[in-house]
């Protein structure tokens, strides 16, 4: 029996599911919204009182930070390293310049402010940090926004906590962490949403222990000076990525790797993105292009229901 808990957090729809023969273990699901609330209170850039906001407004000072903050920061360092700088939390200024200043729910969809690419570029190598005691020190001019990394990290954490009670799946706004097959040994059926046809599916994935994530420019987009912008910033240009990929869905050993790879493939575009996926044997991806075509990496088909 699959028990589900659905709620909204981090500006996204969340779902936690647990396969259990009895209800008692599934009661753990009721704790999941509180976990996400605690993490959001630390990691949100839209909450002035959050740990991240306090860190961002006080650069060049070494801040003692929570284990949560340090863990997410380390995940971001890993993502930046794996993507060779394409996926980084250091592009907040570019994101704000492009118009993504407030939470997406309250973001004006039409704006009239110039986006600029003349912004200082940073990498996480410029952040001083220690593990014992946990501390972070940002250079002047850098603000962090963990974005999808925070969602993937939260999905992974929640899944690991639930996995003690049975096969678990946590979906944090499209970033999905799966602990392993269902109790009967079958894989979890997971749909890929079709952004062109809401309510329809691009395919059904049958997944065991893994992570899957989709990065897209189809939903979080807005108009600035009569031009459409989206929230995927290409750190090379400091502007929303110009790409022929509408959305990229990637299956990886963990949801954090899947999130990083999906964003990387989207920024690189269909040709370079597929090459990037093929060069990594642990990844499988599917790209939806602007012209409506679907392209797959060679390992993706084995996960599709047929």
């Amino acid at each position: 029996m699959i028990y589900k808990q659905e709620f909204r957090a981090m500006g996204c729809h969340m779902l936690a599911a647990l396969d259990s023969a009895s209800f008692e273990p599934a009661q753990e699901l009721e704790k999941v919204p509180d976990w996400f609330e605690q993490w959001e209170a630390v990691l949100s850039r839209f909450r002035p009182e959050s740990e991240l906001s306090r860190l961002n407004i006080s650069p060049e000072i070494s801040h003692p930070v929570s284990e949560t903050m340090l863990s997410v920061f380390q995940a971001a360092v890993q993502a930046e390293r794996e993507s060779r700088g394409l996926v980084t939390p250091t592009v907040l200024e570019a994101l704000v310049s492009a118009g993504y200043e407030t939470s997406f729910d309250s973001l004006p969809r039409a704006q009239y402010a110039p986006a600029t690419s003349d912004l200082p570029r940073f990498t996480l190598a410029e952040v001083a940090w220690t593990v014992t005691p946990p501390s972070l020190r940002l250079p002047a001019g850098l603000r962090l926004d963990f974005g999808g990394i925070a969602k993937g990290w939260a999905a992974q954490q929640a899944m690991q906590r639930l996995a003690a009670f049975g096969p678990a799946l946590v979906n944090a706004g499209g970033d999905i962490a799966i602990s392993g097959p269902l109790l009967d040994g079958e894989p979890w059926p997971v749909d890929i949403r079709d952004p062109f046809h809401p309510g329809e599916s691009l395919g059904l994935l049958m997944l065991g222990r893994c992570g899957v994530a989709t990065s897209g420019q189809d939903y979080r987009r807005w108009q600035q000076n009569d031009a459409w912008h989206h929230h995927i910033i290409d750190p090379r240009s400091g502007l929303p990525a110009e790409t022929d990929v509408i959305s990229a869905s990637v299956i990886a050993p963990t949801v954090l790797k899947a999130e990083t790879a999906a964003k990387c493939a989207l920024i690189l575009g269909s040709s370079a993105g597929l090459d990037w996926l093929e060069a990594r044997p642990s990844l499988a991806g599917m790209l939806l292009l602007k012209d409506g075509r679907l392209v797959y990496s060679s390992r993706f088909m084995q996960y599709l229901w047929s």
Partner: protein
Amino acid sequence: MQNNQPSKRKSLFDMRDVKRLIFVLAISSTLGFWALFSSKLNLSSFVAASNSVTASSTPPSQAQELLVLDLPPLPTLIPTAAALTMTDKPASAPAPVQKPIGSLPAQGVVVSAPQAPAGGNTRFSRSSGGGNQSRSNQPAAVTSTGSSQ
């Protein structure tokens, strides 16, 4: 003088009869009480024996069977329905457990039964550009992935 002796003898005889009567009454009442208490003891032991047989579901001993046969039935001492319920149930049957109220599904937690894959023999062609490819034997998705919403 001679007239007084028979009357005296008569009076003594009467006293002896009274004593004899009292003796007989004492003996008979003693025997009666003994018989009565003896019956109550048997009743008590019968009830105890019946209860223990019912509760343990073990066959009564031969002596107990004889005792049961000798005594009249006691219809009101053992509830018939309860006794039947207990004795008719197999010893290995699990006791029904009522769920406490606190364990009822909480609001917000949705229960669903997964639909297992049908075996993978059915094929379908994939059309570029998407569209709904659901089939009748396709398992229902637990969730979906897409751009953050």
